[in-house]
């Protein structure tokens, strides 16, 4: 299945959770937040939230700004 992560298309195995997705990208759990299809995924729900074909996932962090 294909999903759009931070604006880029990725081919991914089926049945993936958001938590597993973060692991795939070696992304730390802390210091990031995730939205799926324009809705925030709470940290507590990352392990349950499935990634499905066509999903749009945003993984963000805090950066320097004014």
């Amino acid at each position, binding site marked *: 299945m294909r999903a759009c*992560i*931070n*604006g*880029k298309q990725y081919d991914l195995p089926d049945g993936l959770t958001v938590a597993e997705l973060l692991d795939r*990208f*070696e*992304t730390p759990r802390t*210091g*990031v*937040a*995730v*939205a799926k299809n*324009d809705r*925030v995924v*709470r*940290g507590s729900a990352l392990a349950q939230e499935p990634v499905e074909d066509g999903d749009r996932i*945003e*993984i*963000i*962090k*805090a*950066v*320097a*700004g*004014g």
Partner: protein
Amino acid sequence: MDPLKIGPYEIGSRLIVGTGKYSSPEVMQACHAASGAEMVTVAIRRINLDDRSGKTLLDYIDRAKYRILPNTAGCYTAKEAVLTAQLARELLDTDLIKLEVIGDPQTLYPDTRETIAAASQLVKEGFTVLPYIADDPVACKQLEEEGCAAVMPLAAPIGSGLGVCNPYSIRIIKERANVPVIVDAGVGTASDAAVAMEIGADAVLMNTGIAAAADPAAMARAMKLAVEAGRLAYLSGRMPKRLYANASSPMQDLIAVHEP
């Protein structure tokens, strides 16, 4: 200095500073310390999926000392801004949000309609909303009516350093506001900050004015002192202006010399 209440929060310093444009995180930390600020802004951006680098911005901000004010900088629509705010809340565990919905990349002026729409939505969702807005008394009043915790009119375009371009509009905004007025953007040097506070601004938010100075940490301290000076002067009730002179030494009992 008298503390400032923003919604449920109280901060001891009336200077709010950014985290952007510093030559290094260490310089940023030195500036934060010198500024005396208790609230600092951060932006929200996508992580780089290919980058495994270690330290992040948050590692350089002691959250025991500094309350974090995430912003929605770069958003062009209410929808983008709302999701960015929601992600910021999830990430930083704060309901504070500096709402910034811009209209174009050259002026970075806000889009008033989108800003008000986003503010309305975020207030409903329980955010403490601090909107960046033009120096427009009507827009500021509408944002207050939407439930924003403060209004943040610009002094000049973001990063311009032009100072308070229109003291009249800022003064009108302040006289009519029932929430704190925080002058945001455009402050270039210390006297700009003092002027803003003397007009009655409750606080000043700046980033480039400090970060782009030749000696950022020294300028950060200058800004701290200027904000305090301006606040004190505002509270002190300045002397009236007059066109003609008024002697500060007595004009009688002068000595006389013998005309040659």
